[in-house]
């Protein structure tokens, strides 16, 4: 009886549900009849946004050309991002004298969608003061404005900070212009190449050398949370993991491990370093606490597991391994354990790097004698090759996760140089460097 009742009630419930769904469908149909249709725009154009950047108004500056220099750096930053098309200053109709008063029709006429006005002046305490205003020309409204002050020799940084503010306001994401890049500077002939650790602004300016070139240095990596780098040095045949604080100049040898050590990289908290150690014919991944120097083994296979990289939230690690035959990318939990393979195409994958946004993993892919830089989602979907050629290697992410820097070696007698490409693959740019350059590592935003 109970089962019958149950059946009946279930049947009734089903009938009721069917009736309800039918009624809901009918109501939906009814509401659609007579309602004004909504038009959905699912696509826009990918043209860079036209932006007008008249020279900053300068007053009593130590160097009158400085105001123009700031404008030029901002213009160059925005142009290289590939998202903006600065309009030639020769086309400007209005000459800006007051940064708070703008004649919008004059800028609309030259098709500028955004306008930046600004002043640069010397403050009573001798520091440089900069103000800027960002305007939406079509909506004829004020969007953003900020003020900065800095010592006069730091004027380039003001330009980068203003570039970031403009970029963030117009694209909706953090900028990456106020950041630096460490890289391996390579000079001398191919046979007697001297490799030095060097650092420069992301646009190639302000190059400084961090090592003298006595030891072979490799794989510099930035801490994601501070201006600190870790790198490998090979002095007297001993591989060492080094730490270098860029602000204090303090150097520290983290560890002297038996056998070969590869690719140390910081964990997101900046307190731990993850690396691979070679033991016999295979290599495994280890995590080391920088304070206690305690080392934890994360993988234990008979294969070569190397190039580990943390996800930005610190919960997972991606690495390359040849445990399946060829080098492929795997993802595992931060404490090791079962690893899941995420790359499946033809070719060998190496040097996976998790984006600071967490949405992509950049990698180097070798297939048919060519090296490509690509990205894929952490679950292995959406693989996209951003650039392809004879030899591209060593991807590193901009702090906002929208641009990848890598080095390209054209082969022959020429040496490598640095390039950037955005995640769409449409905008590739060469980064100027004093001589040959390789193995770049992008810093987080300066604070």
């Amino acid at each position, binding site marked *: 009886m109970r089962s019958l009742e149950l059946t009946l009630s279930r049947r009734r419930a089903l009938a009721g549900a069917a009736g309800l769904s039918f009624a809901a469908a009918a109501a939906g149909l009814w509401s659609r009849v007579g309602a004004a*249709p909504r*038009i*959905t725009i*699912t696509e826009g154009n990918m043209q860079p946004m036209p932006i007008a950047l008249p020279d900053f108004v300068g007053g009593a500056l130590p160097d009158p050309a400085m105001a123009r220099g700031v404008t030029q750096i901002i213009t160059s930053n925005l142009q290289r991002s590939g998202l903006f098309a600065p309009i030639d200053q020769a086309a400007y109709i209005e000459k800006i004298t007051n940064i708070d008063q703008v004649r919008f029709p004059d800028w609309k006429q030259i098709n500028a969608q955004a306008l930046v006005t600004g002043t640069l002046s010397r403050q009573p305490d001798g520091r440089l003061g900069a103000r800027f205003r960002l305007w939406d020309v*079509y909506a004829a409204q004020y969007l953003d404005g900020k003020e900065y002050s800095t010592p006069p020799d730091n004027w380039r940084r003001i330009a980068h900070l203003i570039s970031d503010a403009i970029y*963030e306001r117009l694209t909706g*994401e953090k900028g990456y212009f106020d950041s630096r890049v460490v890289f391996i500077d390579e000079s001398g002939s191919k046979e007697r190449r001297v490799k030095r650790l060097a650092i420069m602004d992301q646009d190639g300016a302000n190059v400084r050398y961090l090592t003298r070139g006595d030891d072979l240095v490799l794989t510099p990596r930035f801490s994601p949370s501070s201006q600190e780098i870790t790198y490998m040095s090979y002095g007297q045949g001993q591989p060492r993991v080094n730490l270098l604080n860029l602000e204090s100049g303090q150097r520290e040898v983290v560890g002297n491990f038996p056998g070969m050590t590869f690719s140390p990289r910081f964990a997101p908290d900046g307190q731990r370093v993850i690396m691979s150690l070679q033991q016999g014919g295979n290599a495994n991944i280890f995590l080391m606490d920088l304070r206690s120097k305690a080392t934890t083994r994360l993988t234990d296979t008979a294969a070569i597991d190397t190039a580990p990289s943390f996800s930005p939230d610190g919960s997972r690690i991606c690495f390359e391994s040849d445990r399946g035959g060829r080098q492929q990318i795997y993802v595992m939990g931060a404490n090791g354990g079962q690893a899941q393979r995420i790359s499946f195409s033809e070719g060998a994958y190496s040097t996976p790097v998790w984006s600071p946004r967490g949405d992509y993993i950049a990698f180097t892919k070798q297939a048919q004698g060519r090296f490509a830089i690509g990205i894929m989602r952490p679950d292995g979907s959406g693989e996209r090759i951003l650039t392809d050629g004879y030899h591209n290697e060593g991807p590193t992410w901009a702090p906002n996760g929208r641009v990848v820097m890598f080095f390209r070696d054209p082969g022959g007698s020429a040496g490598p140089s640095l390039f950037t490409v955005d995640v769409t693959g449409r905008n590739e740019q060469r980064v100027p460097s004093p001589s040959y350059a390789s193995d770049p590592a992008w810093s987080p935003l300066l604070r």
Partner: protein
Amino acid sequence: MSAGHTISIGGASTSRRDAWTLGGSIAVHVIVLGWGALTFAARPLTSDATPMPIDIISVSEFTELTAGSRNAPKAQPAKPVAEQIGERKPPDDPAAKIAKTEVHAATDKAAELPEPKPPTPEKKQLEPQRDLIAEAIKKDLAKPEPKKAEQKSEQKKAEAKPEKKVEPKAEPKTPPKKDQPKFDPRNVAALLDKRTPQRLAATGDVVNSNIGIGAPNASSNQLSLSEIDAFRRHLRSCWNPPAGAPTNKRVVVPITIRLKMDRTLAAQPEVEMKATDAYSLAMIESARRAIIACQPYTMFSLPKYETWKELSIDFDPVEMFGG
């Protein structure tokens, strides 16, 4: 035989069960089909009342349509209603038409209206009406005002007399002669146009694209697919969505715009959402910029102004950053 007998017994029990099953099946089918027929027939599809007008245009026309121009000429007034394209006929010989038929163009009659009616012989149909009025007046006003009554009675007599005098044989000859003095120099064109008025209303050179206007259930007083498509393409060319789209978050910006008859914005676009972060703020501003930069919206035709004077638009860059 025994085998056959066994089968027949089994068949009897099976057939009884079959009958139940069949009966049940029929009953269920009748219920389901009946319910379906009643339910689905209850409300006819209103959207099929009239065919949806779809304009098929050439590439060059489309380019002109989407390009837009501030100096564009004003739209032509709407064509007269035509349900189908009529054949172009050369005008008939007016002289022959007059001789054969006595059909008058509507415009001729209109010209007659202001003129006082001459005392023409009345037809028999009008007689009872005249009598009724005269009788009613007689009843009301006969005794206190004898003069008026007399006048009315005189009128009645005057009207009555011609009836008797007019000879039925003379009637066909007189009307054409009496039409001639009604010539109105202001309506020469109307008089020259001897086409029948019915054909004017029924046919035209171009099929009217707005035949459904005024019909409550018509679908042709909506924007056509080609108009919506042209609008969408135009807006797409003006919209520069911000590049900072998060991969795991979809931001759709709903905006309502109001347009004037000159196809430009009547007011600032109304954004129906509030920015929650830097990206949604940049999205809202990019959508607003696109709407302002894209005007005037020349793809819309003036007769349909009611349908496009207010538009709701969703900006959703799903096809750009979704994959």
